[in-house]
């Protein structure tokens, strides 16, 4: 038992065995359910195939959500009730984080989607389409931490008398300007951090929107051309409205991703110099300081910010289903 529980290889083996055991049991039950008839069979089949997923959702999603809500009104070690004072902290000490997060949530989706859209339209049906797509999509393959470290080097600052090792400052000094402290001088440093996230997410936007653009029926485009539309009118009046569902999906997905990102601020500035964001604060309070109360309150706030986006997304999907049938 010691091997199975305490060594990494053992735990891996245990996980595989557990998975196979659950699978075997489910298939056995399904096998017996075959013999049943009518409503009984439907119920059992639902339980067998939907049951594990529902159970995992309940344990992994619903229970933690309820527990986080509960912890957000308790104190640091979750022992006594403190009402809403954890949320009050957010508006006293967490204002910088709130403000920055707002900036991120507005600029990242719009920036990535714009770049992705323009790029997709430009390379559509061109000779280098595949290569160009891969180039912009590559950053998505890098973790946020990896991207943070890459861009930390790009933004690196040295005194004006020193040799510059940061790419941007090297270019600036080569032109003859003074090197800039990209990461240290607020409020611009937040914008430079946002640029990193836009760089990562633009590829995602481009790929989804490129597929959507290709799905616009040719007859509509031809009809518009025949009616005398120029390139800009074609883009703004025909293409964009047609890909509206995809645009919404891309915007909301990137929005939700932005609310969760804390790696970029943590690796690039350690959340110093007024670059703190909500997700990073939540991480710091929950795990570095061990304060479950304030950390959970921040998690709940992030969740609440995300809900409208998800609702909008789901409603759009339903509307599309109704249209497509």
């Amino acid at each position: 038992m010691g091997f199975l529980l305490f060594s990494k290889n053992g735990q891996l083996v245990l996980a595989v065995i557990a998975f196979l055991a659950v699978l075997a049991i489910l298939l056995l039950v399904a096998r017996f359910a075959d013999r049943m008839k009518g409503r009984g069979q439907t119920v059992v089949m639902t339980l067998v195939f939907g049951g594990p997923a529902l159970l995992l959702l309940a344990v992994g999603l619903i229970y933690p959500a309820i527990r986080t809500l509960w912890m957000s009104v308790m104190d640091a070690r979750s022992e006594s009730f403190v009402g809403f004072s954890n949320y009050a902290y957010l508006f006293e000490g967490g204002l910088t984080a709130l403000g920055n997060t707002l900036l991120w949530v507005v600029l990242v989706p719009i920036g990535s989607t714009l770049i992705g859209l323009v790029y997709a339209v430009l390379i559509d049906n061109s000779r280098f389409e595949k290569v160009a797509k891969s180039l912009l999509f590559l950053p998505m393959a890098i973790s946020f931490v990896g991207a943070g470290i890459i861009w930390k080097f790009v933004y690196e600052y040295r005194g004006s008398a020193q040799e510059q090792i940061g790419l941007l400052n090297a270019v600036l000094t080569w032109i003859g300007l003074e090197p800039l402290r990209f990461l240290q001088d607020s409020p611009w440093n937040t914008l430079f951090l946002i640029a990193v996230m836009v760089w990562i997410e633009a590829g995602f936007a481009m790929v989804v929107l490129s597929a959507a653009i290709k799905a616009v029926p040719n007859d509509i485009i031809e009809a518009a051309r025949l009616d005398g539309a120029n390139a800009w009118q074609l883009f703004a009046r025909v293409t964009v409205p047609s890909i509206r569902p995809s645009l919404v999906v891309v915007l909301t997905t990137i929005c939700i991703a932005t609310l969760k990102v804390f790696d970029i601020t943590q690796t690039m500035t350690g959340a110093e110099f007024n670059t703190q964001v909500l997700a990073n604060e939540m991480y710091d309070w929950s795990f570095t300081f061990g304060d479950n109360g304030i950390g959970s309150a921040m998690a709940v706030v992030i969740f609440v910010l995300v809900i409208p986006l998800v609702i909008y997304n789901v409603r759009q999907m339903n509307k599309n289903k109704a249209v497509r049938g």
Partner: protein
Amino acid sequence: MTTISVRRASVGIVGGIAVALSLTACAGDDLGGGGTGGGDGGDADCSAYEQYGTFDGEQVTISSTISDQEGDQLEESWADFSECTGIQIEHNGTNEFESQIFVQVEGGNAPNLAIFPQPGLMQRMQAGDYLAPAGDDVVAAAQENYTEDWLSYGNIDGTQYGVPIMGSVKSFVWYSPSAFEENGYEVPETWDDLMALSDQISADHGSDTVKPWCFGIESGGATGWPATDFLEDMVLREAGPDVYDQWVNHEIPFNDPQIVASLERAGEILQNDEYVNGGIGDTRSIATTAWSDAGLQVLDGNCFLFRAASFFEAQLPEGTEVGPDGDIFAFYLPADTAEDQPLLVAGDYVAAFDDNEATQAVQAYLASPEWANTRVSIGGVVSPNQGVDPENASSDVLRLTLELMQDEGAVARFDGSDMMPSEVGAGTFWSALTDWIDGGSDAEEALTTVENSWP
């Protein structure tokens, strides 16, 4: 058709159970580096271990943060003991120790022993009533081999729980012996001499790119910690070890005038454009320079003095000669007089979760000079154990560290930020000092921010 499928399913299940049972039967065997059964080289001299008794294959589990190569070295250090006493020592070293240990202990799955890198963490364990007091053998060995200062951090409410087994010293200034020789500089013995030396270097070599000191505090999510170490060293020198203790335990406010004066003393170097930041930029650039990058400037000749702990040695590129005649070496960060020797230290404490005989035997062995000498000989670390022979140290810096720790006049104080509540020690303390270095606040303001954030 149905029969065949049912049979297939049954075979699958039975096969799965069989595999599971056979793996269970293989339990407790060699865990790839964990177990120490099968010592090679025949019987070591077991007479040295007779006092610990013999146990028939009993198992003792130890958790720690020590992994990879250092973990292997640790396991090597007790291999002979394990063979002679028959105790199977199972070591589990992981980076996630600090979060995992609580989970394990609260889940009833505590190891027998744990090696804590911070006394604060050990005290939190004791607050939850999880630790077992060190046995009489252990306490006797500890009191014989360690100074009061070191023992006090493992002593909670009058009972000894933890014993310090390894340690490092942070009060060092790294310099280039060849550069010093070329320029006729001498290693300073007092703080005033150090300042005079800095002025001298500034006059001789100061330019836009070359400065006497270099420093960096950037460290990702932990940005700011080298500055807190610098301040702690200054408090020890400016205000003394007693005030240091009061400050760390919040018996005096964080922005007490003595602490402000200490921070301003640090500022004599860190906020002086004539003194920093060699090879990199101005005083503000300290905030975005990685702490080890700053030290490497000494090797490049862009600066001459770099204050860092003994473990900076591990950051040096391969092939660097570290020694009094080599490319780089360290001297003790001087105090106001040559007789005072306050040391800012860090260390590892071993504490027990139960009082089994085997557990106690292992803990007593770890507290003994035999273990300490074995571990130091293997290399890479030193121990505050007074019985360690400095000749065993594997490098000149480690030897110097040992000599400092064993000096009679040495006063050791543990890194303060480890002992403070984590919102401060890993939070506002770091960010307030980063802001201070960035020029966003002065010494008084920075310390007041921290004082206001104390829970």
